[in-house]
């Protein structure tokens, strides 16, 4: 009778040895934003195929998670679409460098029965919906921006993030600029006290909820709406025009940033000026410790960054992310030498 247990343990023990990599493999652990997860997972996969000895294990647990785990030291680098605040940087036990990777956009996706066209959302409409003040799809604020579209009287099911999220940061940053009431009542950050709504985990969770819930509205990164065939609407920008998120609009929003980019690359481009700019665009950053003790890991990270800024950018547009403006790429290449 002891034999089954012995066999079971033997079998389990064998499992231990499977997947044992040769000693020369460099394993990097990273965690963070779900916003750029599609492009990051593509990059890490392609990079691993080109350099089989480097494995980057990225877990998309949300920007809040990326920041936290980086500060705890449980990952080699983090990722976030909300740059770390001054307070967080001072709390960190070591210096953190921000490296923008792509330009992306938060889009308002919705699942309204009977509506197949793109809806226009004014800034007041979006802030009103998320404040819980606009509760039905046929509210005047929405209908007046969408003449000719038959909007039902269904309840609006507001969906937000349940985890600490850079996508939330971008969205609330935009809402704070769009509405003074939002700024005072709720504020902006990776995790806020939402007045209303259901919480989904990650961009993935929000997309899933919107897709499955009639009447829902949620904010997700553009590629999630595209990959999952969920309708997303146009947002009114600072110039008053309704813009649908696309590469042109995102690039336009990011173009102005190059001039005023601070040295640490932390900048917000929501509600950017310009008639064609998409107002809920943002950079997203990799958070790299300035000092990395392990030489092999340090070189691997620096090599990856260089690849990312050159060849990596070629994959952006295929996944609906915009490329970084050239001047910013040049500055980042120089900044890589700061990693020691």
């Amino acid at each position, binding site marked *: 009778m002891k034999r089954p247990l012995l066999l079971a343990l033997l079998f389990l023990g064998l499992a231990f040895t499977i997947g044992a990599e040769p000693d020369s493999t460099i394993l990097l652990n990273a*965690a963070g934003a779900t916003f750029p997860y599609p492009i990051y997972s593509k990059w890490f996969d392609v990079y691993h195929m080109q350099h089989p000895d480097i494995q980057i294990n990225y877990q998309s*647990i*949300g*920007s*809040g*998670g*990326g*920041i*936290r*785990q980086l*500060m705890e030291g449980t990952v080699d680098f983090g990722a976030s679409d909300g740059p770390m605040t001054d307070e*967080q940087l001072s*709390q960190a036990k070591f210096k953190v460098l921000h490296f923008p990777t792509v330009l992306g956009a938060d889009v308002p996706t919705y699942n309204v029965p009977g509506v197949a066209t793109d809806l226009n959302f004014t800034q007041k409409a979006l802030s009103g919906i998320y404040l819980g003040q606009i509760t039905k799809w046929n509210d005047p604020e929405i209908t007046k921006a969408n003449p000719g579209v038959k909007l039902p009287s269904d*309840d609006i*099911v507001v969906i937000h993030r*349940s*985890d*600490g999220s850079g996508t939330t940061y971008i969205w609330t940053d935009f809402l704070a600029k769009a509405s003074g009431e939002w700024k005072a009542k*709720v*504020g*902006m*950050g*990776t*995790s*806020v*006290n*939402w007045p209303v*709504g*259901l*919480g*989904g*985990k990650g961009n993935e969770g929000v997309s899933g*909820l919107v897709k*499955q*819930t*009639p009447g829902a509205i949620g904010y997700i990164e553009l590629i999630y709406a595209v990959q999952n065939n969920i309708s997303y609407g146009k947002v009114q920008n600072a110039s008053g025009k309704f813009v649908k998120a696309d590469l042109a609009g995102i690039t336009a929003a990011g173009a102005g940033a190059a001039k005023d980019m601070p040295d640490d690359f932390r900048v917000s481009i929501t509600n950017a000026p310009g008639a064609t700019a998409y107002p809920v665009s943002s950079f997203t950053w990799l958070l790299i410790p300035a000092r990395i003790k392990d030489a092999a890991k340090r070189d691997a990270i620096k090599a990856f960054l260089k690849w990312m800024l050159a060849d990596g950018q070629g994959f952006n547009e295929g996944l609906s992310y915009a490329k970084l403006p050239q001047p910013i790429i040049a500055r980042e290449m120089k900044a890589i030498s700061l990693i020691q």
Partner: protein
Amino acid sequence: MSTAATIDRAVPPPAGPRAFIARLRHGDEVAHVLTLIFAAVILLLTSLLVFELWINSQLSRAKFGWMFFWTKVWDPIFGNFGALPFIYGTLVTSVVSLVIAVPLGLAAAIFLAELAPRKLSDSIAFLIDLLAAVPSVIYGLLGIFVVVPIMRTTIGPFVKRTLGFLPIFQGPNYGVGFLTAGIVLAIMVVPFIISVSREVLLTVPREQREAALALGATRWESTWQVVVPWARTGIFGSIFLALARALGETMAVTMVIGNDPKISASLFAPGYTIAAVIANEFTEATGNLYLSALIELGLVLFLMTFILNGLARILIVATERGGGHP
């Protein structure tokens, strides 16, 4: 070492260091001490667990004190954390699950113990025992793709049509929410209730039933007024077991409850439980106060299950002493 195993039975062990070493050689003391150490490790682990929970929630306990239990707000931006929405959610979902599972489970157990032929009863009980082993994440998977759509398209509207005047059934029906979480939990705990209640009902002596029937009671009356009360403690025990499981349930709940830290009267509204918020926010609590508040929630959950277990034990011990009579 002496290999001759002698037994010091008739003569009491002599005192003194030489005798101690002699006893050691026998190996019995060694075995005793060795196994005792392992047993003590369990004590150590549990104490360490409580200690870690206590220490790591220090920041939050110092800042909020007892107000933590009354505060409705969970605001990471302004650093204001309160446990009330989560305690509420945990209790509401557990109560809803029991309201559904206890009558159904007890009725099914009565059927299996009293009415079904023995073979049928045994095989069904065997299968139900197996079902109690199904992992939580699987129920979560089924919850998302089966229960939530059914809730949204069928059950929700039906309940609203018939009982929609009650405040607990007002408000929009999203498919996820307290009620859905309660239903999924009910499915998860009903096997425990059936399994334990059935066993307890089977131990009720035949004479009790026969005495009732001899006095002219119907089958139902004998069951409900004699047998079930006799087995009362065990049945309560199964309910406690189910409740303890429901309180700590994490995955299935977080996949169907809507993840919104609000207190609502309506069961259709989204909510949050202690276990679910820890699962969602633990890895990303930016800031020590935030993490500390989450750990304090873990401590609260631990205390809830601790008290529940304690009550269950007292119940069992007290009625064991009373002899199990109604």
